[in-house]
């Protein structure tokens, strides 16, 4: 409870309390307009229907938690949004870009799509042969055309923000899982995304290390970042995200304000899932 107030207060204070040291802070569009919109999105692997007719809007500054049993399509949904997994049909709209998934899509469009999206993976996927600093700087130089010095400056600011400036010149293997995930978050933030996608960011971590990652995500949420978080962390879903969506069998079972969805689910399938989660 007290924690909720905290988030609310931080949000009221400023859009970015710690200040993302980004060169091009994207101007916030009018709050009513969705940053991400999915229309009738479907995806199948062979005969397996992974996503069925998904419709979803995520507003600027919204934090959406996606929960649900394994194999329900949560991760596939995230991976479709940034085109790691091309959807079969439907429409993905991110900012001003709108892509029809049933038609062939050009490389530049995928690039434009991904430029607006930061992705954090369950298994961190840092580049093991680069220092922490290099991990965060590389894509800034390659895709945003920043100089090495500019990129490193941005990187140091972000590493500071996730509390790991002292690890800048280490290699990832010297860092704990929680630290690696925070570095991965910094790496994604370095490209000034409009939306951050998190694919079970704490599932590979023990509970204590998970907490430090969740703390960073909470800070990010309170700074006004739009986030979609696939997670099993019910605490995060209930306390940090405005909205929660429950998925099963490639469909949206429930969607709404987090507390309502989690405390008072309407469908039997969602109740069963939440009961299983709470019984643990």
């Amino acid at each position: 409870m007290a924690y909720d107030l905290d988030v609310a207060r931080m949000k009221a204070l400023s859009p970015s309390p710690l200040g993302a040291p980004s060169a091009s802070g994207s101007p916030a569009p009018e709050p009513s307009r969705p940053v991400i919109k999915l229309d009738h999105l479907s995806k199948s692997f062979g005969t397996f229907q992974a996503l069925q007719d998904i419709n979803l809007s995520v507003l600027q500054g919204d934090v959406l938690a996606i929960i649900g049993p394994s194999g329900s399509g949560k991760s596939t949904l995230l991976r479709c949004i940034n085109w790691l997994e091309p959807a079969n049909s439907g429409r993905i709209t991110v900012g001003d870009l709108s892509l029809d998934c049933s038609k062939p899509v050009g490389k530049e469009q995928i690039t434009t799509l991904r430029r607006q999206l930061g992705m954090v993976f369950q298994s961190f996927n840092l580049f093991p042969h680069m220092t922490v600093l290099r991990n965060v700087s590389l894509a800034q130089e390659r895709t945003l055309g920043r100089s090495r010095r500019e990129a490193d400056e941005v990187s140091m600011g972000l590493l500071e923000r996730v509390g790991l400036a002292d690890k800048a010149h280490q290699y990832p293997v010297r860092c704990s899982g929680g630290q690696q995930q925070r570095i991965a978050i910094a790496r994604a933030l370095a490209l000034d995304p409009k939306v951050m996608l998190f694919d079970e960011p704490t599932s590979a971590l023990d509970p204590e290390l998970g907490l430090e990652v969740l703390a960073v995500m909470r800070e990010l949420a309170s700074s006004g970042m739009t986030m979609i978080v696939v997670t099993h962390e019910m605490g995060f879903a209930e306390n940090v995200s405005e909205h929660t969506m429950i998925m099963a069998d490639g469909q949206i079972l429930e969607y709404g304000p987090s507390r309502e969805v989690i405390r008072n689910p309407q469908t039997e399938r969602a109740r069963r899932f939440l009961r299983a989660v709470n019984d643990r």
Partner: protein
Amino acid sequence: MTWGHLVHIAYGIPLTLALTGGAFFVGAVLGFPIMLLRESSFMPLKVAMIAIIAFIRALPPILWVFLLYFGIGTGLINLSPFVAAVAAFGIIAAVNMAEIYRGGMVSISAGQWEAAHALNLSRLSIWRDVMAPQMVRVALPPSATYVIGLMKDSAIASTIGVAELAYRGKQVSQMSFEGLLPFTVVGACYIALSLPVAWLSRTAERKLRAKVAR
């Protein structure tokens, strides 16, 4: 056997090195595109490459040397024995290096590709910045083993008259009417040449691993 004989054998060292180095260079360069074709998602191409690689590896090296020197080198275009030998060993090295590179690529987790794509890195950057440096680490030890094997195989070039170590060993044994000593000297040369390769590879591997291993 005289000092003169010893010097005569020693003159074979540069040629053995050039043969090995040349063939390895050809293989290391050609191996990469061959690996990419072998990993192509276009099935007919992939199957064709698998067949070609299996075919090249199936024939004994001496046959490739003869094919190139007597088959092509004297009939179609004029190839010197040295060039024919480098080409023959280069072809064999290329398919073997392709397999070594493939091992390096397979060892890189799918997550590395996904992260690179999610970060919007270009295809060139993915290969240059992310994949190649990781592949090199994995491919280095088997490559060093392969170079040493290639150097020993290069003795086959003596059969078409390339005056490398084995060829000169045979010459000296015929000149001095001795069998044991000249070939022992040749053997010692091969050992002496492989040691630095093995040492270099170990050192490089240790340096590269130290950074990324726990």
